[in-house]
């Protein structure tokens, strides 16, 4: 039952540039580091009160997922339990981990907070995307030293081929020490406007673009 899977939409946010389906959108290289994420949120007039409670990693994931799913509204085409979310990165939640650590290192200035601690798990960003879009399918968060096109393509293809999901929101969401990178895309079993098969080779091309 060999069938093909396709990359059907793509959003990347890095180096002060938002790009959708390979076309450059909002860009402002004068904005330093992670402040660009908030600037993009405003530029695209996104509106979600919970955004301001999120840590930076989730904010990045949120903006990328909003733009991706506006472009390709998977939730209108698929049942909530048939949409998988599989994300990876390198630094896990180390950005907010460091912040939590700061609140507990000094016994005389000890103030751990649940609103910080809750974000000290990388998969919280999957939860945020799931809540926003009522998505209930498969969940997985992986850690790699760098984006692994081979693993991501073969694993996602295997869960679609074995009918564990009908489509998938997947990619790389990384943020640490004021550097950030989102490369988020959708995979479906029908060829979309991008006309790109979901193979490691195609994925590498898009990622390195």
């Amino acid at each position, binding site marked *: 039952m060999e069938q093909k899977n396709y990359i059907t939409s793509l959003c990347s946010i890095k180096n002060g540039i938002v790009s959708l389906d390979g076309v450059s959108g909002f860009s402002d290289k004068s904005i330093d580091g992670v402040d660009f994420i908030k600037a993009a949120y405003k530029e695209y007039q996104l509106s979600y009160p919970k955004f301001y409670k999120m840590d930076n990693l989730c904010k990045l994931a949120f903006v990328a997922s909003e733009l991706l799913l506006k472009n390709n509204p998977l939730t209108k085409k698929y049942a909530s*339990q048939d949409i998988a979310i599989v994300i990876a990165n390198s630094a896990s939640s180390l950005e907010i981990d460091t912040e939590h650590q700061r609140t507990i290192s000094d016994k005389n200035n000890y103030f751990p907070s649940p609103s910080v601690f809750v974000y000290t*798990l990388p*998969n919280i960003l999957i*939860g945020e995307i*799931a809540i926003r879009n009522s998505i209930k399918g498969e969940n997985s968060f992986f850690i790699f030293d760098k984006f692994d096109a081979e693993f991501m393509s073969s694993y996602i293809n295997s869960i679609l081929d074995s009918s564990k999901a009908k489509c998938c929101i997947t990619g790389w969401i990384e943020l640490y020490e004021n550097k950030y990178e989102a490369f988020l895309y959708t995979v479906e079993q029908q060829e979309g406007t991008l006309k790109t098969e979901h193979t490691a080779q195609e994925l590498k091309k898009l990622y390195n673009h």
Partner: protein
Amino acid sequence: MKLESYIVADNIISPLGFSSSENFEQLKQKKTGVKRLESSELSSEPVCAALVDTQKLNSEFAKLTTNNIEAKEYTRLEKMVLLSINDCLKQNSNIDITSKKTLIILSTTKGNVDLLDPTLASKFDKKRVYLWETANVIAQHFINPNKPLIVSNACISGVLAIILGKRLLETNQYDTIIVSGVDILTRFVVSGFQSFKAISNEVAKPYDAKRDGISLGEGCGTVVLTNKVSSIKYQVSRIVVSGGASSNDANHISGPSRTGDGLFLAIDKTLKESNIKASEVDYISGHGTATIYNDDMESIAITDAKLAAVPMNSLKSYFGHTLGAAGVIESIIGLQSMRENTLIGTYNFNELGVTMPINIIKNTQAATVNNCLKTSAGFGGCNAAVFFQKVENN
């Protein structure tokens, strides 16, 4: 033909022992690893948790490395994983960890997060706090040629890692998968759960009317899966991973869904993949953290899945909540229950106090246990389930 995922070795490193059988023996004797600790390293106030004895860990580890020429420093967490995998390798000489067809999967929520503490940070390279570096150190120790996979998905990580192992064996890219789940007790984690006011002042009381929060724990569990029939010929009882699935509640990042629909979905997909009816399930190893909301949610999901009559326990009052290790450690106890046809009573459980009447095992008892459903749930609204089954020897 579908390739099966056979269990060929397993190990638990916990305060209750350094092997699966040692741990199971302690559980049968109703011994818990959770104690009231007065450790200023972990918390300024006393906290109930299950802590691995550091002296024992170091002395066992010293035995492991005596023949090793490289005098490399390992972290507390890495020592647990190395001991755990090493014990698995000793159990079955057919496991070739140096083979290109063998992959290590590490399941952890926080890895070497203790290295963020300024007092420890200087002892290791800065990159050691990255989970992929921790996994590389482990793979290099065993001269495994493949880049390890790391699953970090809150408290369902361990169950997810086992499911992932099964899926990778089905594609035949590998013939052996070593799944290690590990997390350590740190001030980082203790302070976080304290800030949530989620920790009980006593040993946790899963599913009980008087439950009032979790107990934390630490440890490592390792299971070795294979699709090679040649590796299993000497196994007395053969157990396979026959299905598994994950889901999201899409409800709240730090609280479980009130309806249990996410967990129900994961269980439902798991039983369908395993080709098993709810009435055929012998035993459920629940998540049972002993928070009010988690245990209530589970009781609803289990009831909706028509599993309310199935004997079920939680092991959190023995091991504490071991986070990324929990799914693996608790699955291994499930395997031991199947091997010994013995169901473990839930420590500290007296009177059922969850929304729906489920069948919580109070006292350890003999029973026919041909299969086990392991469930888990975690922050981020995630849920996962995995199913283990005995298969006929032929």
